[in-house]
């Protein structure tokens, strides 16, 4: 081999040799490496729209108060202090004064003061910025600074969740760094790529497309976080994120699909953690026909919808596709809500009475095992996203169960973007939908009321309209007394369950995958990452290991 041609081979060996050395490099302070398939977009909270950016933002910016893990959003009982130590209501409860923790400070050393809160409210409410929080804080008239440590919130009117909306929606921003920038220019401000916050973690590095890194703020006013470094390790696709966890280059990944969980058995160094999630899955029935005006020949009839619900053995379906741990959903709400109670009625699995109802409604069984009613066959299509194996398996099981009661079902698989598009354009008959819920039960008002159906937006695509249900929801949302609110919610839930606008399938719990020596703190249903500062990585002591396999194996 000519000398100059051997050079590349020698170089490769050198690289390989130093590879080994790098593997067990000096021990690193406890580090949580989270692999996930999406890069952040803008780290300025009011401009954040994607999941990664909201996670990073949540650990760098604080709210005034934080809801407790029970997510009781009515009144102020269920809340605990964050940026504000304490708060006092005015006599007519039309204003609340928050007392900031004097020790709170921005990562550049400047202390947090009331005018930061005033500025933050103004920015989040401004039309130019278009913050997603805007509509939620519409109930707040204005915010003033009584003194340098006491911002005061003034309200238009009293409402059960006024404290929640005021103190726990806005993440406080450093006015001294941002107020000189006009609102419309905030979008392209460099702050969005290099933010300064007041939270437990300060910004370290952002290599776009590769990693975002935060270091613990040792002087944080609520105590030093246990995990020293948080790294969001970004991959191009969900598959690559799982690959990174399994190869040991990451020690946490937020979302494992059922098939990934099955695969975890082969990796002793990893474990799966189920934690509640505010997410409910159901088969939405479109009550309008294709022309969007006349009722759908099958789903327009409430009795037929009830019959189809009774034809489905929901418990067996959930056990087969997922596991027995996952609860069967009662309705479009989460069992974690304070407004939930176990006495709610449920449509039973009763195929015989389902057949009886269908007969009574004139759906005569045809020779080919499919029912007909004045020329229309009991035949409809279920739309399912091709990327979700769980929903595809569920569609196959439902198809089989409906066949037992004489209903012919086709399954149409489309990719995710088309799945959303078809629902919004009402070009579907039935669809296996997964909906994320707001932490507060009042969210049902935006999702299922007649007003939502008529708004022609993405909500209530099935066009469920029930005046009685609307009335109950309105009074529940307005009731100041939690007990009265709960009884109204009960009647609203009972009504929608009886009307069966959709076949409620399961409340999915999120499954995260992590290395065995990561101990997570409580993972709150709406935001699993809110207590990330209290997690511990390794047996508390600095765990060694960086790069691939060593990271995972270092605990043994």
């Amino acid at each position, binding site marked *: 081999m000519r000398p100059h041609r051997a050079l590349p081979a020698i170089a490769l060996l050198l690289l390989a040799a130093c590879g080994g050395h790098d593997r067990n490099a000096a021990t690193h302070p406890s580090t949580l490496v989270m692999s996930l398939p999406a890069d952040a977009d803008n780290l300025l909270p009011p401009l954040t729209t994607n999941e990664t950016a909201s996670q990073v933002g949540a650990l760098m910016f604080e709210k005034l108060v934080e809801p407790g893990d029970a997510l009781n959003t009515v009144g102020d009982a269920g809340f605990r202090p964050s940026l504000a130590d304490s708060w006092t209501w005015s006599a007519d409860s039309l204003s609340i004064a928050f007392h900031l923790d004097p020790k709170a400070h921005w990562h550049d050393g400047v202390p947090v003061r009331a005018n930061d809160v005033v500025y933050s409210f103004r920015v989040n409410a401004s039309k130019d910025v278009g913050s997603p929080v805007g509509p939620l804080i519409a109930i707040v008239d204005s915010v003033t600074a009584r003194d340098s440590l006491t911002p005061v919130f003034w309200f238009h009117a009293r409402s059960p969740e006024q404290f929640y909306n005021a103190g726990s929606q806005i993440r406080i921003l450093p006015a001294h760094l941002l107020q000189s920038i006009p609102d419309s220019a905030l979008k392209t401000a460099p702050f969005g790529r290099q933010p300064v916050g007041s939270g437990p973690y300060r910004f370290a590095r952002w290599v776009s497309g590769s990693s975002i890194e935060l270091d613990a703020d040792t002087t944080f006013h609520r105590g030093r976080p246990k995990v020293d470094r948080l790294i969001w390790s970004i991959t191009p696709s*969900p*598959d*690559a994120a*799982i*690959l990174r966890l*399994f*190869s040991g280059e990451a020690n946490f990944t937020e979302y494992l699909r059922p*098939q*990934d969980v*099955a*695969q975890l058995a*082969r*990796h002793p160094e990893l474990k799966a953690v189920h934690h509640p999630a505010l997410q409910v899955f159901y088969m939405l029935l479109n009550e309008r026909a294709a022309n969007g005006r006349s009722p759908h020949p099958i789903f327009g009839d409430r009795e037929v919808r009830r019959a189809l619900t009774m034809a489905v053995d929901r418990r067996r379906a959930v056990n*087969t*596709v997922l596991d027995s741990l996952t609860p069967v959903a009662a309705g479009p709400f989460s069992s974690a809500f304070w407004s939930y109670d176990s006495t709610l009625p449920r449509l039973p699995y009763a195929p015989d009475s389902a057949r009886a109802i269908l007969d009574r409604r004139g759906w005569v069984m045809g020779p080919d095992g499919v029912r007909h009613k004045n020329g229309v066959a009991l035949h409809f299509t279920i739309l399912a996203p*091709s*990327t979700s*194996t769980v929903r*595809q*398996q569920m569609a*196959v099981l439902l198809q089989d169960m409906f066949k037992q009661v004489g209903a012919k079902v086709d399954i149409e*698989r*489309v*990719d995710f*973007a*088309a799945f959303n598009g078809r629902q919004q354009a009402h070009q579907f008959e039935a669809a296996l939908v997964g909906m994320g819920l707001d932490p507060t039960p009042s969210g049902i008002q935006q999702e299922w009321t007649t007003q939502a159906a008529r708004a022609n937006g993405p909500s209530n695509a099935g066009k469920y309209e029930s005046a009685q249900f609307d009335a109950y929801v309105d009074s529940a949302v307005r009731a100041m007394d939690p007990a009265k609110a709960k009884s109204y919610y009960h009647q609203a839930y009972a009504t929608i369950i009886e009307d069966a606008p959709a076949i409620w399938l399961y409340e999915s719990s999120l499954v995260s995958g992590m290395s065995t020596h990561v101990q997570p703190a409580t993972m709150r249903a709406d935001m699993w990452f809110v207590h990330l500062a209290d997690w511990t990585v390794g047996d508390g002591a600095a765990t060694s290991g960086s790069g691939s396999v060593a990271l995972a194996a270092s605990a043994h």
Partner: protein
Amino acid sequence: MFALRWLAAGILVVSLCAALWRLARRRDSGSRFQGALARYAAHPSAVIALAVLIVLYCVAAFAPWLASHDPIEILAPSLVNHAPSATFVFGTDYAGRDVFSRVLYGARLSLTVALLATLISVLIGTAYGVTAGFAGGALDAIMMRIVDAFLAIPRIVLLIAVGTLWSPLSVTSLVIVLGLTAWFATSRLVRAEVLSIKEREMVAAARALGARDLAIVRRHVLPNVLTPVLVAATLGVAGVIINEAALSFLGIGVPDPTPSLGNIIRDGTPYLASAWWVALFPGLALVITALAYNLAGDGLRDAMDPRQVDRS
């Protein structure tokens, strides 16, 4: 019973190859085609490649009959990522489906899509090349610049762009898209051949006899163009197979449950560490097919075009 079926298929294929071999060895008829066949048979690698191709197409044709399980049916959640065993020759994938049957059906799909797409690309390429070659002058220059533009865009990026904007692609639209993005090389080749033929006296003579352009094209140009186009087509198929697999791998090609070699590999990607067989076997099938086409294409080029002697 399952092994019996494979045995029958094996016998059929072997007899087919033997017949072909005897044909190649026959010396008597001295036709141009015969000489080419003999020269082709002289290349051992090309003959093996042809035999492999025959086997592949037979397997693809009889896939439903040969497959051990239903490729789409989710057998049982318990059998997820099961290692290769007697019942599941290539193991099972994450959804508990038999990889062997999916590879069979996937190969069947990939082969048919590649063949049809190449057919389209050859037709378009030849037509485009002939018009550009014959028209000459400004039109020829413009047409060639357009081809340069298309060649300047890596084919996979073009496919991704098209895939994004018109997804999900049904199999027919996939064939059309693959066909539409593969004809550039063929058109250049055909144009070069047309230009060289145009100069030769026979075309001038034919024109002198008052033959119209179209007649000239049919009688003189097309037969001569046949050789390079045939060679380019064979080599082209390998490229199209790989591109179809890449598209399915990216999730833009064939929609999910229908198996294509590309999306089987995609299913196996996240579990590479512990379930490597899901990604390995479809890839091997792809490589064997592409390699067979490449070797056959090389053999064909030497056989049909002795002038351009390969310096082997």
